[in-house]
């Protein structure tokens, strides 16, 4: 894992981002940095605000959403840019990979043209030039017979191929930032592994930073440099991935890891660990820490004061929003096993497919 070079501006820098849908406060005071070439995993359950945060960063939220805060991409403050000014630069600043490529591709336009229009509109290429560039971009994402595939429609492609087309579009202009919204969730396991391997390769080559939304801790362990955990609209913990896995400070993160640990190494037949209760609705946040009602460590303070995000532990950048952060000592051993297993299992999955991938 290579951290961004110090002189390079971070791929993405979000400061005090808030997203509101009417009375619903979906993202609260989020600050997040994706270093150049880094993969930052944004973890959280449905409704935690992770998609709102990512879509706000990509300026893809509907106009009904009220967004405040600052977003800088590759050192450029894009929150200050007007709509059409941002439109002109957006494709060269950030690419987006959607979860459901079938829906995200236009059903009645050949995929080659959908890739090619990026070159036609933003690189000023003529139609035949753009078509050629599209074929080259499809070849980049390891689609075999790219010239033939370019003429096909999305419904004629497999799920993996469609996701490759999405990736080709996102990376067409080699943007410094890619926002990926659970790009492998809709795929079967072996295709998932292929796509992850492909993204890993492209990332190394293009040095794009990734904001990667996911539920999958295995993906986080394998691909991400940094992890940010969201709960009820807030980033409750963030830090380097190995630190998060080794010594989670927030009890919610601990819980997430424990559910995974049980899946990997729990005794057969033993009940799986689960975080009790369910997250609060975004419109009825309790006073104090939103996780307090479900938290084993909650005290009276927790139900009164919402803890701010503060440095946790000794590792640089590791932060948690908790009155009683874990020291990591008690759960360290177990978590390490889980992280190692996750990494090993996922790496093993990919070895098989990596061999067949040719450039």
């Amino acid at each position, binding site marked *: 894992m290579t951290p961004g070079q110090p002189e390079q501006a971070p791929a993405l820098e979000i400061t005090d981002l808030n997203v509101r849908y009417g009375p619903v406060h979906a993202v609260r005071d989020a600050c997040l940095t994706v270093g150049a070439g880094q993969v930052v995993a944004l973890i959280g359950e449905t409704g935690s605000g992770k998609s709102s945060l990512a879509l706000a960063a*990509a300026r*893809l939220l509907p106009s009904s959403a009220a967004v405040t805060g600052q977003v800088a991409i590759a050192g450029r403050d894009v929150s200050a840019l007007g709509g*059409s000014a941002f*439109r*002109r*630069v*957006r*494709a*060269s600043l*950030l*690419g*987006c990979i*959607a979860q*459901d490529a079938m*829906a*995200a*591709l*236009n*059903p*009645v*336009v050949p995929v080659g043209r959908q890739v090619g*229009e*990026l070159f036609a*509109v*933003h690189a000023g290429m003529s139609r035949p030039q753009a078509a050629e560039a599209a074929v080259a971009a499809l070849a980049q994402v390891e689609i075999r017979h790219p010239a033939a595939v370019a003429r096909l*429609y999305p*419904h*004629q492609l497999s799920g993996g191929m469609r996701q490759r087309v*999405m990736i080709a*579009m996102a990376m067409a202009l080699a943007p410094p930032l890619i926002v990926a919204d659970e790009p492998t969730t809709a795929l079967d396991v072996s295709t998932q592994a292929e796509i992850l391997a492909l993204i890993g390769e492209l990332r190394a080559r293009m040095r794009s930073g990734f904001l990667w939304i996911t539920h999958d801790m295995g993906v986080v362990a394998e691909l991400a440099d940094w992890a940010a955990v969201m709960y009820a609209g807030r980033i409750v913990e963030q830090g380097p991935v190995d630190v998060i896995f080794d010594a989670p400070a927030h009890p919610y993160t601990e819980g997430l890891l424990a559910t995974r640990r049980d899946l990997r190494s729990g005794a057969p037949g033993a009940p799986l660990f689960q975080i009790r209760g369910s997250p609060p609705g975004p419109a009825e946040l309790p006073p104090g820490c939103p996780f307090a009602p479900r938290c084993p460590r909650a005290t009276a303070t927790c139900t009164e004061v919402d803890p701010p995000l503060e440095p946790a532990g000794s590792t640089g950048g590791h932060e948690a929003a908790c009155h009683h952060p874990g020291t990591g000592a008690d759960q360290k051993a177990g978590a390490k096993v889980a992280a190692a297993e996750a990494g090993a299992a996922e790496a093993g999955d990919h070895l098989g497919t990596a061999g067949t991938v040719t450039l």
Partner: protein
Amino acid sequence: MARALIRRLLFGVIAVAGVVVLAFLLEFVVPGDPAKAIAPRAQSPAVLASIRAQLHLNQPLIVQFADYFGSLLRGNLGTSYIQRQSVASLIGPRLLTTGVLALAGVVAEVVIGGTLGILATLYGRVRALVSAVNLTLLAIPIFVLGLLLLLVFGFQLAVAPVTGGAGPAQLVLPALTLGLIGAPWYAQIVADQMQDSLASSYVRTAVSKGLSDSYILRRHVLRNVLSPAITMIGLDLGSYLSGVVTVEVVFVWPGIGLLAVDSLHNLDRPIVMGTVIVGAIAVVFFNLVADVLRMFVDPRTGEEL
């Protein structure tokens, strides 16, 4: 796909055959004596009887039908009672005239309806206005609208011809009538589809690619709207053609519809039958055309056809 087309064609042939039987039976339900229509001044029953015998009208219905169907299978639509000319030669040129009007009407309804639908989707302020226009148009019977237009533009403002005929000037009002009557349906379908399309994930992808709004509308939204609109043309064809007949009568447009109505008044059964059969074939044929067309616009339908 070819197989599916052949199957549809087969169904089409069955449908046309059914129409032939039904129309033939209806002919004989209509009161009146064709012989009297042919020779209105003939008083002697002997003359009328000889006319009836000449036309085989005195034979049992089933025999008449067998005769008619037999010659139909040989491609013979029969001879007009009154004009003493083959039905095919009468219908032929009229078919072209009707085709011109029908086509102009379809273009008018798609253009007017599409424009209304697009305006209603893109500009919230005109949405209520468009709905009001739609409702008004839906509530007006086609012959009332035709007469109204004729009255206003033909007689009051005198900018449109009031005499019948098949010239370009005479085409405007009937085509406009058809267009206005059909427009609300297209406006609705276009507005619905556009709303779906604008909210779709692929439009969000297009936005994320930094494409301009007008580019996205032209290249990504409209193509997705086109396919259901074309389906609509195909589905709507039957009722649309009946509208064409009405409009031809109102504006005295010398097409196949006017011919049919005139012949119905004259009890000229072969012509009525001929026009009905040609109409049925047209509906079947253009439904097929719409399906094929839709396949080109929306490649997904190729598989389900």
